[in-house]
């Protein structure tokens, strides 16, 4: 189980994440949603060890991940929000680099890369530099890199960004399959329809704080709303979208 306890991050006095706590059990997908700047990506980066928390801790199977950060990192797969990749490496080379960094054998790397690239229809472009890839192709490379090490915990930060409809459906099914195999998934996204469909529980973050954290069914009942979008809107909305759009139109005309 992954457990996050009172995770807090301050940047020069600004509170980006404020005492966030949750857990993910094996076979569970936790939807992690919130408006822009809510602290979603910061939380994910603290979990994987890219950022040091100002307070709080992350526990994996009951032990602080700091006790064996390397061991923890070898069990996770991460898809970052932005497809930052080395542009001069080909997709194949990038995956090879990832596999080697994970200490995988050459034979295993080769087999898995070929399979993943074929499954994602990237085989023909495997030797093309990443700089020539479309956003969706880069996202497929990131997904392949995350899955390459057969991780127990997957942290997806907007994994569907840039993907075509078919691949999106495949990835959704894939996430469900991964959860069915007992893997833990943290799914951070703005696409609430997908979150609603695949996540067992959802955590809504607003200005770094947990605004709601429960199963979608319970949230619907508690908040007397029919959809996650309505719940989200209720909890995070500060301005009237209609009025805001009107203001944009006014400024354009001015």
């Amino acid at each position, binding site marked *: 189980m992954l457990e996050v306890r009172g995770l807090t991050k301050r*940047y020069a006095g600004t509170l980006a994440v404020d005492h966030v706590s949750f857990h993910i059990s094996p076979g569970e997908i936790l939807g992690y949603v919130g408006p822009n700047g809510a602290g979603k990506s910061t939380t994910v980066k603290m979990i994987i*060890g*890219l*950022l040091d928390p100002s307070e709080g801790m992350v526990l994996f199977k009951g032990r602080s991940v700091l006790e064996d950060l390397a061991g923890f990192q070898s069990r996770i797969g991460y898809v*970052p929000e932005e497809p930052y990749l080395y542009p001069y490496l080909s997709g194949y080379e990038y995956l090879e*680099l990832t596999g080697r*960094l994970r200490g995988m054998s050459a034979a295993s790397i080769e087999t898995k890369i070929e399979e993943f690239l074929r499954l994602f229809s990237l085989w023909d472009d495997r*030797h093309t530099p990443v700089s020539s890839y479309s956003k969706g192709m880069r996202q497929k490379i990131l997904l392949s*890199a995350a899955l390459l090490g057969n991780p127990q915990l997957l942290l997806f930060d907007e994994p569907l960004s840039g993907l075509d409809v078919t691949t999106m459906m495949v990835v959704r099914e894939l996430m469900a399959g991964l959860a069915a195999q007992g893997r833990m998934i943290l799914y951070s996204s703005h696409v609430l329809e997908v979150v609603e469909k695949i996540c067992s529980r959802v955590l809504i973050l607003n200005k770094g704080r947990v605004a709601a954290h429960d199963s979608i069914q319970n949230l619907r009942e508690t908040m007397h709303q029919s959809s996650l979008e309505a719940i989200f809107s209720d909890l995070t909305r500060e301005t009237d979208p209609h009025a805001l759009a009107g203001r944009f139109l006014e400024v354009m005309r001015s």
Partner: protein
Amino acid sequence: MTTLRETRGRKYELTRHFLRHMFDNEWSASTGQWQSAAAGLIALLVPVAMLLVRELDPMGQGYYRRLLALPTPERFRAAVIADEVGILILLSVATGVIALFVWQSLYPSSRDCLALAGLPVRPRQIFAARLWAVAIFAGALVAGMNLLPTLVAPAEFGGRWSIDPSWIAAAGAQAAAGIGACSFIFFALVALQGLLLNLAPARWYARLSVWVQALLAGAMLLAGLRLWEVREWPLETVRRIPEFGSWWPVVWFAGVREHLLGNHDPFWTAMAARGAWALSGAVVLTLALYLVSYRRYRRLLLEGPARRGSSRVRRWSPLDLLARDPRQQAILHFMAATLARSRTQRAIWLAYVGGVAAILINSSIVDGAIWISRRRQAGIEFMVLFWPLACTAVLLPGLRHVMSIPAELRAHWIFRMHEAEGRAAWMRAVERFTAAYAIAPIYLLLIPVSIHLHGWMPATRMTLLQVFASLTIFEVLFQSWQQLPFTCSYRPGKRPLVVIVLGYGAMLGAVVPVLSIYIAAAGKAAILFWILFPMLTGTWLKLHLSRRDGWGEAPLLYEDTGDDVPDMGIREMRGRRPPLETASGGAISS
């Protein structure tokens, strides 16, 4: 200032944009970082330029006064020509280096076209604005470069034996020669790039362009180092210029000066005409190539085929010989790929390689190792002795510099995620890579020559000492290296350029030659070898152990904080957390 802030026409705004970012290219990590490098370059060039004024040089004071006192003008005029050629070499090389520095800004790039694609700007306007920016930049550069020589040279070269004693005439002739030489070099380089852009296949252009850039940088350095020798040409050599110098651009423009001052020698008149034709040719060719490039810009810049790698699956690489551990292999392959394919890294590394080639060729010419056949044996001995250490002394700091510069900084998250798993293995890979790239090749190349020249035992003794000297230089340079190559942010200008150049000068002019003499002696006398060998290996071992202390324990650095890291050492940094909360590491970015 308010006027400058006002929005003007598109052409004006585009020209201003291009001019403002003329130096912001692959050499700098972010906008405006070139200023410190420029300040350093000026600080370096000013004393060099002052040394050209003989009256300011303690060794050369009274030089022209003595020549003016001679009964005939020949020696005075020959000295003026030699000095003039020297000045023109310096001006041309400096202009050429700056033109190479802004190489990527000389023509519109595909990025310019794509970035401005959504705006109401036509390709014609982009090309016109870029051409204007290049022309304004060239004008300012050439004028700035020639201001001091135009004022100082007439005073330096004046006197009873000067062809035209008028200060105004001398200043005008000097200005024409200097401006002509600088403009020719600048526009010749612009035209050369235009030719590459138009003639090279679109998918080869980027790679070819970097090779040409590096080659020219080496050539500039090679020419620059000849400056001091040229100034000391005796009368006999100046008389022989028509035999060897009629295709030197600087001689053409020295001819412009001579001709304008009234020297009607047919050779100098011909040279002046050649200079005028060359300059006009370079400018016309630049304009023509801009026009052609504009006409074909879509095919050249936007419709070039997407780069595709080789379809051949690589099963084995020589790098696999350096390590078997997959984590080390990961770093070795990453480093090799970055050095070979990342434009910035490749360009800077090739500049260092070009630099070292220039130094080796120059030193060998000065020593007589190349050209003088009767000294061939001694010359080859010089190469075997001097080259390995000189190569190490330039390439190791060069590789360290290149590895300090990030390649796609935000992509380093992949390493940060896996750092704890393989930090020690990664650092071992860096060691091996550096040895394989900057130390091993020159020894592998020269060991057979050394054996042929000295026999097995002396050659082995010499090579052993040289290798340990190179490894010691490596240990000194990498004593506090605490980052994965190409993944840490970089803050340039931490050390003034003058200090860097003086450091190279001291290393190549004093340390390496002295050490080479000792090594040569130790190679021939076994007893000396057994004195020098323990000293060198002991120094290397001490430094090696000190560098390895804390190896793989301290977290790697991903941000150049500007601290004096080179002085700290790994032990002091142990336990220090890397500054993670940075823009590069990802701040509040949900």
